[in-house]
């Protein structure tokens, strides 16, 4: 079991790397997640792992990765995805000029269910001739590897995927379900930390950052939101699901329209250099 000092040290290092706020109530879960890493790195216990990390920054990166929260599901927040299908994406397609690519970013994509849900919706829209590019990022290589595989357990595909969508876009792969190559090719997964500038990713017409920000402390959450706001096009939209935004970044973002959890960058706001 962690000592208080070890817990504080882990919490500080993880917050520095990812912005995520770890509370003492999470200590048992943290320990069980770190045990797999400790065995893989050949340490006798997690206390030795933490002791070694004090002199080895690579280990802190691995610890932050191991503690990344994988909770996600297909079409999470049904009402929001309905708005995406019937209103937001069709509007983006209508407003796009001929040949213009609609760029969408799944920020904090975890194991990829949100990005692939977007790919399924975009697939419907492509029939109208719309050009859509989906970029999905996470700070965790472990979660990105799973996302890129396109493989999901029976438990995972049953959380959020209607059965007709499942058999249209997935095939059985032994005990798992594999998303079609066509949809998998529509999502580009990249490692990116939301606390860093997203300039390298380009500008986006729509950013989904759902159920990610609430796990962050206020200061890194504000930084992440400013980085996202800076990556929006002039008319670009940020969707946060039920995460709070205006409480920490009202200077950069303002609610857009009638749909809850959708924001636009404030006119005139620029990220501080």
């Amino acid at each position, binding site marked *: 079991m962690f000592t208080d000092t070890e817990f504080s040290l882990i919490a500080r290092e993880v917050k520095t790397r990812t912005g995520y706020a770890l509370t003492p109530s999470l200590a048992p879960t943290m320990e069980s997640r770190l045990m797999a890493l400790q065995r893989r790195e050949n340490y006798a216990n997690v206390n030795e792992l933490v002791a070694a990390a004090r002199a080895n920054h690579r280990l802190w990166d691995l610890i932050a990765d191991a503690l990344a929260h994988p909770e996600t599901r297909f079409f999470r927040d049904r009402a929001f995805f309905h708005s995406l299908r019937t209103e937001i994406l069709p509007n983006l397609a209508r407003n796009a000029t001929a040949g213009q690519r609609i760029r969408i970013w799944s920020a904090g994509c975890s194991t990829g269910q949100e990005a692939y849900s977007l790919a399924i919706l975009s697939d419907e829209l492509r029939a109208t001739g719309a050009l859509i590019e989906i970029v999905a990022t996470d700070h965790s290589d472990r979660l990105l590897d799973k996302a890129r595989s396109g493989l999901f357990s029976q438990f995972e595909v049953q959380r959020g995927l209607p059965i007709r969508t*499942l058999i249209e876009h997935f095939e059985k792969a032994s005990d798992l379900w594999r998303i079609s190559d066509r949809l998998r090719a529509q999502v580009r997964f990249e490692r990116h930390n939301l606390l860093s500038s997203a300039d390298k990713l380009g500008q986006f017409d729509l950013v989904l950052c759902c159920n990610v920000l609430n796990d962050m402390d206020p200061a890194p959450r504000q930084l992440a939101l400013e980085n996202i706001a800076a990556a929006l096009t002039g008319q670009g939209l940020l969707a946060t699901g039920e995460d709070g935004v205006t409480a920490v970044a009202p200077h950069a973002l303002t609610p857009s329209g009638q749909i809850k959890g959708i924001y636009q960058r404030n006119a005139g706001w620029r990220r501080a250099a």
Partner: protein
Amino acid sequence: MKSCLVVDDSRVIRKVARRILEEMSFSIDEAGDGLEALQSCRRTMPDAILLDWQMPVMTGIDFLRQLRQEPGGDKPVVVFCTTENDVPKISEAIRAGADEYLMKPFDSDILQSKFAEAGLV
């Protein structure tokens, strides 16, 4: 309150499903095979049916085909709940009139998710 008929030859599965669905505010009736289920529907057509596939006397798929021919038999939302998890079986169930399809084993999260996808909650 919406009603749901739970059709499964396993008493344990019926009990687990009843507990979850009652927490979702459904009133529950039970049947142990397709024929019992058909008789129950002829008495009172439920809003939803959670339906196993392999059962004695009458299978779930045979029950569903007959149900959809009954007066008012188009009304219940039918969610298959079965260990059959191959695409051809799933397609067969949809062609027979299933609205959703749940692969066992399941938990309350999956059952709630499937009922939501079927428009029941």
